[in-house]
């Protein structure tokens, strides 16, 4: 449009709207949509520092510290606030234009000094957002200077991670911050021949605090001493008892420091712990393992049997009975899920878990979508699908977003969608129920409190899925098909 031209205000004709409304549901549109190269629409992933903050906040007395623009910190905090309906303390050094020019060292100095004075943290993990990453701040130097200049005590743990938002996703930020914190805390703690006898458990990026509690319950039932790193359950699922606690809990720093002398270390997510586990592999004593999240019966079996093997403890009868009850629920309800098609969107490790659960139920994980991941993911997911006839028709979509998913749902529909709240728009357009599993969930309550891992989590998912399908049947059937029993 040239500057001078003045146009009349126009109204789009209704029939035009109807035409496009129909058009965006077509195969033709799907093709155009999948031809996108530059535009991303409704992605299902967030940026690195968010994941870093999840780790940074889940250690006892730890105050997450964002080196970068203040807006970033506010976005991370509110995202956690909405998902958990809990406080999410984090501070930042509020870099502005001058930071762009002179670098962020002064902001860091002042920020660390104030944060330490006001909130008396036991640890200040620092992670970056875009700005300092682009201008290339040297955090190692800055932080050392902050201590030598006395802005914060020398002995205050200040691990830091570079977490540029233009690289990877929140799960990579989780990985980097985890690795940084463990490196910092375990520095010089490795004692030849010493063994804590404990299991180090790294859950990976998981918005479900119920999962963390479930891991702990299982370990306690097994009589295995453990350190969960990082323990979000005591930070993002805290009591309302009349006093706000800035530092409600999390992994104790001593425990994290001792973890290097652990009897075994298990990561229950592969993709969010790559660097951490690589480093642990080199430095930690004891066994080191990366296992899939224990979704469904078999993955939970594997987890428990591995624990039993590592610690020479039998799996207690109570857990065996729990397994049997979960299987009972599955055999009793198989007919409500058998052959049902699902679209699944989320983080890589969650996707593996959900898919293996669906395959166990005889359901079909039909569209499997990860909006930012690697070819390796695609290969491994293929392997998993090949283990079951119910994976024969599945399709995997990597680096595709929820607007791609919408096209898939419209042109090749399914019975249910599993994903986080962001998938609700596609679900609504396709009139397909959305089962909220993942992160973030900002439109329902308490789902983060209900585990989806372990035998109990398996029953929870089964209940959620089967009963929703029964709800739909009862709500939509004609009178003559309405029945007392289902």
């Amino acid at each position, binding site marked *: *449009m040239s500057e001078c*031209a003045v146009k*009349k*205000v*126009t109204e*789009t004709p209704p029939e035009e*709207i109807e035409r*496009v409304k129909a058009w*965006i549901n077509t195969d033709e549109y799907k093709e155009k*949509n999948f031809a*996108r*190269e*530059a*535009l*991303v*629409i*409704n992605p299902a992933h*967030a*940026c690195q520092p968010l994941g870093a903050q999840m780790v940074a906040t889940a250690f006892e007395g730890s105050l997450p*510290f964002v080196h*970068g*623009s*203040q*807006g*970033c910190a*506010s*976005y*991370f905090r*509110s*995202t956690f606030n909405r998902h958990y309906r809990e*406080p*999410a*303390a*984090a501070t930042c*050094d*509020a870099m502005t*234009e001058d*930071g*762009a020019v002179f670098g962020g060292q002064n*902001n860091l100095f*002042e920020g660390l000094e104030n944060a330490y*004075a*006001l909130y008396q943290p036991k640890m200040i993990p620092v992670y970056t957002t*875009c*700005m300092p990453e*682009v201008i290339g701040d040297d955090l190692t130097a800055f932080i050392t200077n902050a201590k030598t200049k006395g802005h914060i005590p020398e002995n205050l743990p200040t691990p830091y991670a570079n977490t*540029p*938002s*233009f*690289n990877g*996703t929140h799960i990579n930020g989780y990985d980097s911050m985890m690795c940084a914190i463990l490196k910092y805390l375990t520095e010089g703690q490795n004692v030849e021949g010493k063994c804590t006898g404990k299991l180090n458990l790294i859950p990976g990026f998981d918005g479900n605090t119920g999962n963390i509690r479930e891991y702990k319950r299982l370990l306690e039932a097994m009589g295995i001493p453990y350190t969960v790193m990082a323990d979000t359950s005591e930070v993002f699922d*805290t009591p*309302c*008892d*009349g*006093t*706000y606690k800035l530092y409600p809990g999390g992994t104790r720093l001593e425990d994290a420091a001792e973890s290097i002398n652990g009897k075994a270390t298990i990561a229950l997510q592969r993709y969010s712990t790559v660097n951490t586990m690589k480093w642990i592999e080199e430095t930690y004593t004891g066994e080191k393992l990366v296992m899939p999240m224990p979704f469904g019966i078999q993955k939970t079996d594997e987890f428990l049997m591995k624990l039993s093997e590592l610690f020479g403890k039998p799996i207690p009868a109570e857990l065996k009975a729990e397994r049997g009850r979960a299987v009972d629920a599955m055999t009793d309800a198989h007919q409500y899920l058998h052959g049902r098609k699902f679209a699944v969107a989320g983080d890589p490790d969650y996707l593996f878990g959900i898919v293996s659960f669906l395959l166990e139920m005889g359901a079909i994980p039909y569209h499997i979508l990860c909006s930012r991941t690697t070819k390796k993911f695609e290969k491994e997911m293929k392997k998993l699908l090949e283990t079951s006839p119910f994976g024969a028709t599945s399709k995997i979509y990597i680096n595709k977003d929820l*607007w791609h998913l919408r096209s898939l749902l419209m042109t090749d529909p399914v019975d249910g969608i599993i994903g986080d709240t*962001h998938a609700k*728009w596609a679900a609504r357009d396709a009139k397909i129920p959305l089962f909220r599993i993942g992160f973030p969930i900002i439109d329902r309550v308490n789902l983060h409190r209900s585990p989806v891992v372990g035998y109990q989590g398996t029953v929870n998912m089964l209940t959620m899925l089967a009963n929703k399908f029964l709800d739909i049947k009862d709500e939509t059937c004609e009178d003559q098909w309405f029945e007392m029993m289902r």
Partner: protein
Amino acid sequence: MSERKPIPGITTERTEKLIKDTLAGMPDKAQKKRAPHLGANEPTASSCAVKSNKKVVPGVMSQRGCAYAGAKGVVWGPIRDMVHVSHGPIGCGVYSWGTRRNLMQGTPGVSSFPLDFTSDFQERDIVYGGDKKLEKLLNEANQLFPLAKGFSVLSECPVGLIGDDINAVAKKMEAELGKLVVPCNCEGFRGVSQSLGHHISNDSIRDHIIGRFEFAEEIGPYDVALIGDYNIGGDVWAAKPILEEIGLNVKAVWTGDGEVEKIGATHQVKLNLIHCYRSMNYMCKVMEEKWNIPWLEYNFFGPTKIEASLRAIAARFDETIQKKAEAVIAKYQPVMQAVVDEYRPRLEGKTAMLFVGGLRPRHTIGAYEDLGIQITGAGYEFAHQDDYDRTSPEMAKGTLIYDDVSEFELEKFVEELKPDLVGSGIKEKYVFQKAGIPFRQMHSWDYSGPYHGYEGFRIFARDVDMAINSPTWKLVKSPF
């Protein structure tokens, strides 16, 4: 507006002591920086004493957002018929996707666009620049969303640092696509808060939109525009009908449920009515200077303010409008009285503390007072001096005023003043609820709303009563 009568227990001395004690917990430098932003209210003072619109003190845990948030979240996002591109890395767009509750009509993805559009910058884009990608992206968006009336390009931090020229790209693509392509350099590192994002966005509207359209129909004497209502929880849909009921034609809304072409033709209206002064006074002034369009601030929170506002608005027009305004006031008076009768008995004598963006603390005071609730403390995330000047007279003497309050300070203030309700944002909500203090999100109406207009007051009253009188609070203290 007569001065508020003092609030029992609230004195200038107590408030000043509270401020002093609170500051005492901070490092000297921080104290010095923060002290001017805190004060005891002096309603009669010519100008409010507290400083504002200054940089966040690093490390204090401010609640502020950034310029991008002010641009994308506040000004641009609500324009329903444009595709708003979060230009840069993935995060900003995702976090601000659907989290502000600026509702809109239209068919999502067809004629309205409550979606997250982003260029999802990768390392290579930082290294080689994102202009080419932006071009391609706009082409793709135009193909997939043919009914979009235009595109806004909202730059995130890296864009301004790697020397991209989105203005050039926008200009080129506007010509190529024959549709508005509006660049907005709202990088998050610019300025001290969301506020600069508002200003930058106002400037973009000035430079790229306003005056480029005109209404198809004749302009009438009662044509107005509604400025600074973002339709949070449906506010516009509760406010606009009232203005229409008093005889005015609302030709454009800035920007709640807004349509960009109507915004572009707003220079034709006879009067601009502005609700959120903070975020849009800039354009009102521009239109006043350039097109001599007068503007008027009004307040649609609570019957008292609504009535005053309707009379003030009507006074700008002839008798027809004035008669209608009186008729509307008379019509809703009993309805509002019924609301007050239902809730006030349960709320009389309660106190509340507020900390919100740039307008609501002062604008909602009347609504709280209509319910018998007094405000013992108020402050803004990103207000300026003129906002505080407008606030002072609305608050009782000695009440606490805090600008860009940190979590550290606000906790101490609430602990001391023990309000029955805190009205603030999501980041503060659970902090206070853990302490057993009822809370309402006053940015987003806590997933409720509308709160504007007569309809809004009914909902506001219900929500405030629900928050304060929920029996769940009695359960907080464990008997063991």
